[in-house]
């Protein structure tokens, strides 16, 4: 019996079976991961979830889907002791052609989406960056686009004109005195 299991045809058969199983497993995982959430997929997804999570393969491949996300821009205002307020848009300093721009934009998105988690640290860093202004406080802002359509473009408007955006104050953080 042992001879039968260790013979070349048996080893080849086992290898064939193992590879076939791996193929079925991985293919099923690929499909299940992206499949719509339904009772059927939920029933099996938990089986594949550890595999997908461990290997970093989780994604629903919904690029700009189902709708194109609304555009947002991070701004902040530095206020000095005299009450003078200076506004900055850090995204304007980034070159689109430089790979780091996408990382910094993601950073700004994190601050805008989770101001309670990231706002204090971001503001402290900005206080240091603008130390020459002798800041007393930094206010973090989120500028969210409203609709911008061809008629706006043809009328000469820019997509960040004041009437085409909503400005939301995220947080005001006091700068630590030195």
């Amino acid at each position: 019996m042992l001879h039968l299991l260790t013979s070349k045809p048996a080893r080849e058969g086992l290898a064939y079976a193992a590879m076939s199983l791996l193929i079925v497993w991985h293919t099923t995982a690929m499909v299940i991961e992206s499949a719509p959430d339904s009772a059927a997929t939920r029933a099996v997804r938990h089986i594949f979830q550890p595999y997908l999570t461990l290997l970093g393969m989780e994604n629903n491949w919904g690029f700009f889907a189902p709708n194109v996300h609304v555009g947002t821009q991070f701004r902040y205002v530095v206020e000095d002791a005299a009450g003078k307020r200076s506004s900055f848009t850090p995204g304007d300093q980034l070159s689109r052609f430089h790979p780091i721009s996408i990382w910094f934009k993601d950073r700004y998105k994190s601050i805008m989406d989770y101001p309670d988690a990231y706002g204090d640290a971001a503001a402290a860093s900005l206080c240091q960056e603008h130390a020459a202004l002798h800041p007393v406080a930094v206010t973090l802002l989120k500028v969210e686009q409203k609709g911008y359509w061809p008629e706006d473009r043809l009328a000469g408007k820019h997509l960040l004109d004041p009437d085409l955006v909503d400005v939301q104050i995220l947080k005001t953080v006091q700068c630590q005195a030195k």
Partner: protein
Amino acid sequence: MSGEVTFAPPQVSLTPARKVTFAPLIRAWSQLWFRDKSTSPLEITRIGVGVALLLHYGIATPYLLTFWGDDGWVPRALLVEDMADPWMQSVFFHFSAPWQWGAFHAFFLFCCAALMLGWRTSWVKWFVLIGQISYDYRNPDITYGVDAILACLLVILCFAPIGRAMSLDRVREVQRAKLANLADLGARPPKFTSPWAFACTRLMQIQMAVLFFFSATDKLKGDDWWDGNAVWLVFSNIDYYNGVLLDFFAGHYWLVNIGTYLTILIEVAYPFLIWQRRTRPYMLAGAIFLHLQFALLMNLYYFSFVMIMGHMSFVRRSWLVSLGAAWKRKMGDMEMIYDGACGFCKRSMARFLAYDGLEQIRVRDFRTNPSPLVSDEQMKKALYLVLPDGRALPGFEAYRYVVLRVPGLWWQVPLFYVPVLSRLFGHPIYNWIAANRSRL
């Protein structure tokens, strides 16, 4: 799973009834998944993924601790709150001193370069996968779709027996074979093929098809795409703002509709038509066109390049063979004449020719097969390269001519083509080696 696998579908010993049922299924399954093919499409993906990762993370080096350090953008305490899943693991969770980040990052970049070159591929690919996942989970805020795509491609590359072609591993294999048989410098080991290589290529193809399918179906759920406005909305988004395009589209909005529907059409058609022999070239062209638009118009270079590398899994070996043949015709015939009585010369030729994957260079030992164009007296002083037009280039000039025309030797181009300096130093160095070759 990176070892050689040579097997035929199992010869199943079955009752006649079961043979009728199972044997055709097994044959069909083997035909679908386990054809004996080379790793060439996966090697192209390997090279591209290696280049992309090396550049991407290399550029991030000055920001290593800012992006992924404990005192950076995402403090460890904050991450612990958000990532309770025990399967989200990162080597960075186990680091405590900045030098550890630096050492890991340096080694990761080294492995990306090794993956690109196909050196010690069987283990570097696993380290690259672990590294990619570790960077992703240490700072999820700066990850996006491309990072998941890379993980998916790397997982399949880890399963696959890559490094057997278009790689330094293959060069080493060929060098070993030639050095073991210096009497026949033209010989080389057979090209690697395996059923498992084809199975992994299929997995990557299915990955790309699944990706496009769900990308398309997800889009169709949204009014922006269904109503034909998505292209306008993308370029009027501050992240991808393109004033020139908006000015043009504002006056010709029907182009926005066409662009939107064309995008969906390519993504919907791809998962179905990419498999057909006749439609594959067009679907590949369409997909690559789409990604080039993303790169040029939206500056998504990294994402687009990685996606194109995934699409390379659909490249047929026959196309590569045709491309290679076309290249050889364009570059023309090259015959290198060497001194077969010189051990150093034969060993050097063996190492040199191992990089000639397309076998563009023919060799001739002037001792046993004298050349009608180059005299024995000339040959005793230098190696010669004979070209189709009858020109014979000696020594350094011969190598200089060849390295530009043989893709496997392009890495030597910087040595041979520095203006003035290459020839200034190259000629004396070669002449010294040639004069003293019997002592080397």
